[in-house]
């Protein structure tokens, strides 16, 4: 029965294959093209005369003596101080992930175990907070931060990103903790554990799958953020994404444009690698709220 149901006609298989190839081209090709082009000079990657120059490296050969060059990478990392930006991104990402998981697991655990009505209102409030466009929050931060003189530094941005991230983390971990059987920690409570001890010794060892998923989303938010970092950090403390935007803003000499291209590759490569490893958790997280529906 089952085999017949899932047997596809030849035409469907072919059609399907073509469609998938077409879709993959659309979704992957732009990245491959950028990766390829980042090893060329600007006259090739943005060649008005002949697009095949980008493939053959015609001008790259003339300018550098080889068909590929890492000039843009070397220059953007050292002369353009992209190393500083990536260091900042690392600091911000690691801090945001660890702090928001710490706060989020505590809060979500309490929300999932309390039977009072206010948990519902807290979750609804979190949902409303989640919907707020980040830029409207930033417009509220700037003035007080200037007055308190805490604008431009990394710790402020980290705390802001943690807070912005909390609603989603709470919801994700809340639905995860709901699937952890209540009896597990209840029996610990009966044996005389405090709630915190039950959390520490009973829940923590079993919560890692949910935490990895939540951590992944926190990481993506912190790593990818442009709105908050561009407006709350000063130039020295820029993370990678606002730094790339800054490269674009200064097109005094042709080289800078290629700096942006190579930086885009430098910034996306680690992200893609992490997602490649944690793909399953990412997908389970995205669907957590939706599929029950």
């Amino acid at each position, binding site marked *: 029965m089952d085999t017949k*149901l899932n047997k596809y006609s030849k035409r469907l298989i072919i059609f*399907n294959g073509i469609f998938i190839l077409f879709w993959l081209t659309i979704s992957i090709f732009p990245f491959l093209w950028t990766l390829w082009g980042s090893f060329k000079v600007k006259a090739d990657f*943005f060649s008005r005369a002949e697009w095949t120059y980008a493939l053959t490296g015609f001008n790259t050969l003339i300018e550098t003596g080889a068909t590929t060059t890492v000039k843009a990478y070397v220059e953007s990392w050292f002369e353009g101080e992209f190393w500083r930006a990536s260091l900042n991104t690392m600091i911000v990402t690691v801090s945001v992930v660890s702090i928001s998981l710490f706060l989020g697991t505590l*809060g979500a655990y*309490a929300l999932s175990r309390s039977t009072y009505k206010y948990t519902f209102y807290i979750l609804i409030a979190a949902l409303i907070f989640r919907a707020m466009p980040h830029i409207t929050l930033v417009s509220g931060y700037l003035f007080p931060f200037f007055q308190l003189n805490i604008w431009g530094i990394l710790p402020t941005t980290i*705390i802001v990103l*943690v807070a912005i991230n909390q609603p989603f983390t709470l919801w994700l971990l809340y639905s995860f903790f709901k699937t952890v059987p209540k009896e597990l920690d209840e029996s610990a409570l009966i044996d005389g554990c405090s709630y915190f001890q039950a959390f520490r010794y009973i829940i923590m060892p079993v919560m890692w799958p949910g935490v990895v998923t939540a951590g992944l989303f926190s990481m993506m938010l912190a790593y990818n953020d442009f709105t908050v970092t561009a407006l709350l950090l000063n130039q020295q403390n820029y993370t990678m994404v606002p730094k790339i935007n800054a490269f674009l803003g200064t097109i005094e000499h042709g080289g800078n444009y290629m700096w942006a291209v190579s930086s885009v590759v430098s910034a996306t490569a680690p992200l893609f690698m992490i997602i490649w490893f944690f793909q399953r958790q990412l997908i389970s997280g995205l669907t957590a709220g939706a599929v029950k529906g």
Partner: protein
Amino acid sequence: MPHKTFFWFILPTGLAMILFIGLPIVSSFFQSLHIETEQILMEVENCDPFGCKTNVRVDVEATEKLRQENPLGRFNGFGTYTDRNHLAFDEIGEAWNTSSSMSEFKDIVLNLPFYKALLFTLTFCFAVTPPVIILGFIVALSVNTLSKIIKGFIVFGTILPMIVTPLIGSLVLFWMIDSQGIIGASIQILFDDPNLSLKASSNLTWITLIIYGIWHNTPFAFVVFYAALQTVPQDPIEAAYIDGASRYQRVRYIVIPHLYPVATFIMLICLMDNFRVFEPIIGFSAEGVAQSLSWMIYQDLRNENKMLFGSAGATSMLTIIGIAFLLTPVLIRTWKEFRTER
């Protein structure tokens, strides 16, 4: 869980959310009621051999002093909301009185900054969402038929546009579509028109931005649909098969109805997320012809020397009102879900 324990568990996260999400909204509102202090002018008499002239000049010292005393500026009530850059009541009233036809009135209104941005934001939202849902569903259906071995790689490839931040995603596309990039240059050769480019007309730019939006959002719809497809019950499908339903009929009458709730979920999230569209405008350097509400706020805050807190606050409040409209169905849905759970 007793109230006291609950309180201590929720305190850190609650504090973070109240301080950095709740308060900024209040602060934004407070800012929107104020306007930057005006420069204090003074009259200076300049005498030269040809006579004396009185010039008006900015009194830098006095202005600076006033700014120091009152950094937020002076109280303006809802003045900022109704000024030319926001709701523009006066301008609309005038346009209503002077314009001879409806289309002329429409032209004037849609050239006011706020309405221009609102028009783009809404167009973007509503043009992107339906194709995203349809395309996401088709991709999910077709990935679902593949064998397990290649599925992992294909799912990874499919979600890439969603993983990268919108700024990088739009840059990557922009570099190809740009008149000197691979696609842009090819199109020019194809149509034999060296002036044809993305920036040539505002319509083309809008279409490009919308295509980018579809590219960026489809993976999300795909992932959700793909997961939902795994939950479709097999029994009705088998029954339909025995009754002689074709593959198309099985999808149309069993799978799609099963996925309706999921589709509404995707639609609402998509509308809400796209309402904040802003980074692609920067990535595509489309500021000239396409402004969104978020972009207006960014523009007010970008200049470090002269930030327009009042204007940004007012636009923020108006954006939040817009979000509230889109959020209401989501809230009602969540509310119902909770009711049934209890």
